[in-house]
């Protein structure tokens, strides 16, 4: 088992008296795909928000490669090497597809107002390397033809692909996907599964929050199961069917969203 990249310990968060997450503890090993599943209301999305900085836990700790994340702003956490998606694709609508993915390259130093005014030519040259890389990525995700279109013009499926193109361009250490299969047809679903395995193949760590259990089974090396804010099981997918707590929570593992 690889060492854990992300460690979550005794994470707790309530909203107005209701415990969304309670004493949640699990670790995500590096370089593998970990699923995070559970019935509705289990607290999965809250965990994702807390890890990525879009909300602060009441107690508990979160560490990324040993670095504590609690209390940090979402952009700071992102710069530590985390990329997360949201339940609906959040592209930047009035920017081109190319710009959307270029932004994922995150050359923060070049985004200084002063530098852009004084060293515009050098920045433009350096950007060429990024553009070439992004063109390759766009090709992988079949977005080359629309690269100069505004992202708002894309179809739903293309927006999902754009999301993955951005993730690929970001070259992140830890990728958290929040329900990537929402409203996705099987063909697109297969491509998404491939992309997820490819990220792991590149040595990145992926966490997938999903309801689509066949997808989880196909892509994940291990799974964390949550229910009512707590972690109730961890381990390879195969073992979960036999776990009575998991079966209980799901009222039958066969109820999957295919």
């Amino acid at each position, binding site marked *: 088992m690889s060492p854990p990249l992300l460690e979550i310990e005794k994470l707790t968060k309530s909203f107005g008296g209701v415990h969304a997450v309670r004493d949640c503890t699990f670790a995500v090993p590096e370089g593998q795909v970990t699923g995070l599943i559970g019935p509705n209301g289990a607290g999965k999305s809250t965990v994702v928000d807390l890890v990525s*900085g*879009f909300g602060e836990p009441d107690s508990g700790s979160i560490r990324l490669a040993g670095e504590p994340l609690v209390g940090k*702003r*979402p*952009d700071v956490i992102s710069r530590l090497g985390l990329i997360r998606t949201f339940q609906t694709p959040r592209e930047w609508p009035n920017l081109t597809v190319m710009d959307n993915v270029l932004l994922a390259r995150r050359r923060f130093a070049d985004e200084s107002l002063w530098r852009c005014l004084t060293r515009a030519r050098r920045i433009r040259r350096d950007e060429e390397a990024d553009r070439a890389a992004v063109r390759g990525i766009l090709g992988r995700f079949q977005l080359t033809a629309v690269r100069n279109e505004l992202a708002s013009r894309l179809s739903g499926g293309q927006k999902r692909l754009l999301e993955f193109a951005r993730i690929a361009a970001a070259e992140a250490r830890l990728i958290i996907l929040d329900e990537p299969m929402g409203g996705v047809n099987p063909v697109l679903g297969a491509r998404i599964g491939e992309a997820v395995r490819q990220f792991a193949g590149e040595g990145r760590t992926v966490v997938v929050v999903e309801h689509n259990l066949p997808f989880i089974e196909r892509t994940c090396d291990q799974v964390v199961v949550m229910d009512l804010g707590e972690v109730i099981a961890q381990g390879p997918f195969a073992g979960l069917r036999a776990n009575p707590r998991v079966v209980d929570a799901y009222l039958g593992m066969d109820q999957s969203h295919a």
Partner: protein
Amino acid sequence: MTTFLVTVGIGLSTAAILSLSAVEFTLEYAVSRIANFAHGEFLTIGAYVAYSTQTTFHQNVAAAAAIAAAVGAVAGLALNAGVIEQFRGRSAITVLIATLGVALIAENVLDIVYGAANVSYNFAQGELHHVGPFLWTTSDIEVIISALAAAGLIYLLLQRTRFGKAIRAVSQDRSLAQVSGIPARRIVMQTWALAGAVAGFAGFALADTVGTFGPLLGFNFLLLTITATVAGGLGRPYATLGGALIVGLALQIAGTYTSSAYEFVFAFLLLVVLMLFRPNGVFVRPSAVAVRA
């Protein structure tokens, strides 16, 4: 002590007008989800209408008030049909700017018709009365009473009538209300007519209180209205009444101890402070509008 109470007394009169204006502003927001920056124009129109009728109706207060309200209602309907509904589904800022355009037009039309110079509205103020520790003119008392009455009627309307329930449904979720059988568009129209009417009446009361005014009367009062609305919380009619009271009093008190010219400065600084710490109203716990980054 007496100065303080006298101040409070005057403050109550301004607060009364402010509360009427603010309640309508907040209803407009509730029902159409926009900040109507032409709202002040309802008051200005009401004031000018009252001014125009003061000769015709020989100081008949009731007539002036009624006509101001009627014209205000028409203005509300016109604004809703001509602008607000046209911009349905657009961002709130877009509509805000559009209403600013309307305000610009209204102010300059009034400028052309009545001239840019201040006009004066001469109603007999009546004698001073000592009502408990407060010092009010008959006019002041009339204004306060009618404002209270209007507020009471609005409360009854919102809580006890089907119309009120429909307004509340539409302000929560317009499509859902429509689907449940509520004629949303008609309710919205009627709410705007009501808003215009009350605001027109408030304009008349304001004209009565300040005496002289120009085409910018309502627009200047608009920021105060917004401050009161924000203090109460956008979209919350009852809390807005409380907000108006707070603002009206704070205004008058601050103004007496420095100079009445600085009243407004305090009001706007109060607005800024409110926006920073309590953008959802003083009665609600704050929640951020922006992403924490």
